[in-house]
Structures are given as structure tokens and as C-alpha cells.
């Protein structure tokens, strides 16, 4: 067993620096790498390009990096729910590259799997397709999209073992598995870190080969964006 465990978030983020391209898992605030985000804030690095489906809210998630003006380029599919984001975008401080959600997912997966490019119907005939190869297969039109290239991927899993194997929970899975192995270095934080052999090899969502460093996360807030209830 190859041990991927690191003891601290500082150690986990060693090598992250200004100007890098980062992938961050999560959908809204669900399944975001809270510990890594806090540490990036603490490191005070800037000029970052962030690939993440959303941009957090004002005071949580990627919103914390926006507050400190650490992000130069945001690559996302949906960026509502964030006043500071809007301000920076409208003022031109922040570059925003909007990408269809399925394309964003597949561009991560392509990077993970060594596929340099693929075709998708999403965005054909829209401004998303401008400047990209358009091509027809079997009478339907598609756009060519290329794999992302990133320096670090930060993901959050439910359980993980020392070998770096990961299991996600519910819809907190989302983009996290696709970003594993999609950047030069993948850092996984987990709610529960167990010894190798404690997880059923049949139930592992992401094999440890796609994870470079794993650590036991702390103080998860797991904030709920839209607490919606049924009447009793």
C-alpha cells in the first residue's frame, strides 16, 4: 500500500502558489473542500484561476477567496448568489469564463482520463461555440472541447483511507471525483480517514492512484444554502 496521508492542511497544500490554476470540487456549498479553501485564504496567494462549478456565497466557499481578491479568473457554470462576485465581475477585476455544466464536468473527466479533447452537443449555435471547432456526426452538430489543465485539484470526500481511496456521500459527490487526477497534484480532505483495508474495495468511488495527498479535515461547517422543508 502506498501511503498518501499527510498530517496537516499546511502540508497538504505545499507547493500551491500565486498564479496557479486550481480545481475545486463541490456544487454550491455541497461537498466543497472547506479546509483547503481556508488554507488558501491563510496563504494569501493570489492571481488564481479557479475551476469550480460555482463561486460560493459572500462569506463561505469560494466567496472567501473573492473577498480577499485572490481569484483572477473564475471558470464556472453558474455564479449567482454572490454580491462581491458581481461587483468584481462588473468592474472588470475578475475574468469569468462560463461553461455549460456538463461540459465542465467532462473537461475535468477528460483531464483525469488522458483524453485531450471530445465533442459535445452542448452550446452548439450559441456564443459558447464561438472560436471552437464545430462538427457534425450522424447529422447532429457538436462542439469540440478540450481537457482542462490545472496545477492542483482540491476535493472533499466523506471517507478515505491511507492509500488515498475515496468514498463520497449523497450529492456531495458532484464534481469531486472528476477532479481527482485531473490536475498535476490532487489533494483530498475527508470527514473520516481510516486505515487501508477498512473500506470495501468494491465500494470505492475514486482509487487512491488519482489522489496524491489525503488528510483528515477539521471543523466542517457544511452550510446549507437553501434549507427547504416540507410541512408536517
Amino acid at each position, binding site marked *: 500500500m502506498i501511503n498518501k496521508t499527510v498530517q496537516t492542511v499546511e502540508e497538504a497544500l505545499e507547493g500551491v502558489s500565486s498564479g496557479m490554476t486550481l480545481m475545486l470540487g463541490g456544487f454550491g456549498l455541497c461537498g466543497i473542500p472547506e479546509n483547503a479553501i481556508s488554507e488558501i485564504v491563510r496563504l494569501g496567494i493570489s492571481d488564481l484561476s479557479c475551476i469550480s462549478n460555482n463561486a460560493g456565497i459572500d462569506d463561505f466557499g469560494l466567496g472567501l477567496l473573492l473577498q480577499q481578491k485572490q481569484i483572477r479568473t473564475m471558470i464556472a457554470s453558474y455564479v449567482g448568489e454572490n454580491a462581491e462576485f458581481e461587483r468584481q465581475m462588473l468592474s472588470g477585476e475578475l475574468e469569468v469564463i462560463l461553461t455549460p*455544466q456538463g461540459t465542465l464536468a467532462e473537461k475535468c473527466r477528460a483531464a483525469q482520463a488522458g483524453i485531450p479533447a471530445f465533442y459535445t452537443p452542448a452550446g452548439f449555435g450559441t456564443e459558447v461555440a464561438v472560436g471552437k471547432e464545430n462538427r457534425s456526426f450522424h447529422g447532429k452538430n457538436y462542439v469540440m472541447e478540450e481537457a482542462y489543465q490545472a496545477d492542483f485539484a482540491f476535493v472533499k470526500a466523506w471517507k478515505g483511507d491511507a492509500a488515498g481511496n475515496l468514498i463520497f456521500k449523497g450529492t456531495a459527490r458532484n464534481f469531486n471525483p472528476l477532479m481527482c487526477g485531473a490536475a498535476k497534484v490532487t489533494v483530498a480532505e475527508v470527514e473520516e480517514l481510516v486505515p487501508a483495508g477498512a473500506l470495501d474495495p468494491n465500494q470505492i468511488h475514486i482509487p487512491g492512484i488519482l489522489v496524491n495527498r489525503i488528510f483528515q479535515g477539521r471543523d466542517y461547517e457544511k452550510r446549507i444554502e437553501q434549507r*427547504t422543508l416540507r410541512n408536517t
Partner: protein
Amino acid sequence: MALDKKNIAKRIAKELKDGFYVNLGIGIPTLVANYVPKEIQVEFQSENGILGMGPFPYKGGEDADLINAGKQTITSLPGASFFDSAMSFGMIRGKHVDLTILGAMEVSENGDIANWKIPRKLVKGMGGAMDLVASADNIIVAMMHVNRKGDSKLLSKCSLPLTGLRCVKRIVTELAVLDITSKGFLLVERAPGVSVQEIKEATAGKLEIPVDVPEMQF
């Protein structure tokens, strides 16, 4: 009388067929889940990674790790499954989802849809909408027939940046049910008490009006 949002959802629910996997957009489409006919089985897919989505949880049953695409807390039903976003959009692009119901800012008479961007206004992003409209064979749009200024949203050509081309099949508004055909918008049903003339006036694109236009049944 023009339908309210609930009744638009109720009318759309009649389009559900037994065995359908359905993706519901945010807004009116979400309400459709409340009106599934009892005699049929459908499953709801949420593109953030669940199939077999259930209703909102009771107080105390919320789970931060279980939300829908609108970031609302939800529950899962027996037979549900969780998966990653690549698998989720694989289902969508791969045409495994039978019906997509979503909102729109504009629809054109050839089925183009615009629902993600207003130039010079704040853009929040397309989310999964471009994937959904580019992939689904069966798209129903739930929308208001006219905007707040009273301008028609059913146009000969969309004025806003497009989300997808020639993809809408059917539109349900507060006034009518319309299909997209080679001749433009085909008036299929009108809301109870709404006249053909009213619909004609509210539709800027080419409108095909059959001799008999029945009222919607609920």
C-alpha cells in the same frame, strides 16, 4: 382566465408518461413534481447527481449532503442512486432522460430558446441548461407568454443570446399550450376562458391557429 404558476405546472404534469425519467428546471418546472398523476411512475433526475429525488425533508431531516440543482435540501426515494456530475450529464447527453421541463426568457417559432443571458445585465451562467437543451429529444418550456413590459416572449427570432437551437417541442404558458412545428407556433390548447384573439395578440412569432382550439382540461 390566465393560469397561475401552479396551474401551468399542473397542465405540464399531464405530459408525464409512465416510466419517464424527468429533469425539472428551477421555478415553475419544480412545481410539476407536485402534480404527478397517481396512476403513473416517474423518476426525477437532478443534474447535481441524484436519480429518484423525493420531496423536501421534514424539519430535522435536512442533510447538507443531499440537495437538488436549486441547492434546496431534498430527500431520496427507494430505488434512488447518487452519482458524479459526469455520469449525470452522460445521462442527459446520452438521451437517457425522457423529458426536460425548463423555463425560458424567449422562444422562437423554430424552437430556439434563450434563457441564460441578458446583455448588459448581470449574467449568472447557463448552469446545465445548454447541456439539457442540446441533448433532450423532448423539451417542454414553462414560461409566461409576455414579459413584465407586456412584450411577447414567443418570437419569430430570439433577441437574446441563445441557449440552444431548434430544440423546444412544446410550450405551456399562462395562456396556452403551443407546439413548435415547421409552420411556427401551433396553438394546441387555450387556458380556460382565454380567447384565441388574446393568444394571437400575445404571440409575436408566426402562430398557426387550427379551426378548433380546445380549452385545457385539468
